[in-house]
């Protein structure tokens, strides 16, 4: 199934003889340049003044830097909620009715606890999922939004698209931390011996992840390619 298509040239071929292209085989035409509007949901192409795709009913939006406002808005919301997520306790542990120690643990606190216990692997996983990934996502989205639509080379564009795809894919996985807190709090209820309660940081962390996901979703990857020249040399 996979060997065949690889050997085959792409069945959708470039629009070679497009009127504005002029030359042979090296010219590419984008929907935007042709005065058309592509549907981001199903790919169908419509005249520029269409508001909604008649096939899949998705709203049509031009690849325009104005669309970045939504990206920035969601991103800032996500960053704001990430602050209390780190300052407030993620969960509260009580052992032996409070006599055996325990206490509040923030995200970083939890990671340090795990590291002290020698659970390095889990400490690294939790640190990656709840600190490195969210911050990496903020930085990546800020950078993508800043460079979107600016002139770039083809290699740059491929890189940026790749980073966008990673951000889009990885966004949901940050929710892991919230799930861990939920499972621990539901499960570790051994009365006097030990019990775990969720803290307010769980909610603000969940909101932060959700807002960042919305930010990544509102980013239009077509903007990455807008600054590129349409003609390219033949490979």
């Amino acid at each position, binding site marked *: 199934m996979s060997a065949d*298509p690889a050997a085959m040239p792409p069945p959708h071929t470039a629009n070679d003889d497009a009127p504005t292209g002029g030359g042979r085989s090296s010219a590419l035409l984008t929907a935007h340049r042709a005065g058309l509007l592509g549907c981001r949901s199903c790919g*169908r192409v419509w005249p520029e003044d269409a508001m909604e795709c008649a096939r899949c009913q998705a709203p049509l939006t031009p690849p325009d830097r104005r669309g970045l406002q939504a990206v920035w808005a969601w991103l800032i919301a996500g960053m704001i909620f990430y602050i209390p997520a780190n300052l407030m306790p993620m969960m509260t542990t009580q052992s032996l009715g409070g006599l055996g120690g325990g206490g509040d643990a923030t995200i970083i606190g939890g990671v340090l606890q795990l590291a002290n216990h020698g659970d390095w692997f889990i400490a690294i996983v939790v640190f990656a999922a709840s600190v490195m990934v969210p911050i990496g996502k903020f930085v990546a989205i800020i950078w993508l939004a800043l460079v979107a639509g600016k002139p770039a080379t083809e290699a740059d564009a491929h890189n940026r698209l790749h980073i966008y795809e990673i951000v889009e894919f990885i966004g949901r996985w940050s929710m892991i931390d919230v799930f861990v807190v939920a499972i621990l709090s539901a499960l570790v209820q051994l009365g006097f011996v030990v019990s775990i309660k969720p803290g307010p940081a769980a909610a603000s962390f969940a909101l932060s992840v959700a807002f960042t996901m919305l930010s990544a979703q509102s980013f239009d990857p077509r903007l990455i390619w807008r600054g590129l020249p349409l003609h390219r040399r033949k490979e």
Partner: protein
Amino acid sequence: MVRPGEYDLQTGEGLIACPRCDALHVEEELTYGETARCVRCGGILARPQSGAFTQIIALAITTMVLMFGAIFFPFLEISRLGMGHGTSLFGVAMAFSEGVIAPLTVALLGVIVALPALRAALLVYTLWPLARRRPPYRHAVRAFRLTEQLKPWSMAEIFIIGTAIAMVKVGGLATINFGPAFWAFCALIFVNLANRSFMCSTTIWDAIEDGGAATDGREQVEPA
């Protein structure tokens, strides 16, 4: 109606635009097993597979059955010093039910249980008539669009990884018993992966259209 290879640069008929980079391509009907990639960014535009609809329906029904089991069977149980505590999936969501974070309970139930189940149901609704070569149901377009929109928000497979991490954290503290609901969720991951390899939304949009719904007069027809 558009004949293969014909296109109109004024109205966009017979063309498709890459959703990732906006490059225009002339639309062609693919045969099963072919993959169409964008000439500019290399992203996959379409990848129809024979029997995919039937497979997706089967996997979606499997998802619903497993989800049903996962809700009603015990999920996890720990014991230590003769004290035990078990929890179901609802118990996990209810962990957040106190105080200001209560809305998180609803959100959690949504992303773990409700959305995956809803997506499975919508997929069956969309594809059931198409797999049997009948015209699609009335709301197929809206149903499939909703399925696509909910895709990033159904997080059943992330939940199970979260469970694994929680288990390692508790591991030293107490003995853990896995309930049937836990195994149902593990199975869901594989169902999900299989589903992903069969899903091709372009093909489904084409099929909905060829089936006669939401026709915008642009579906491709066989050359006469």
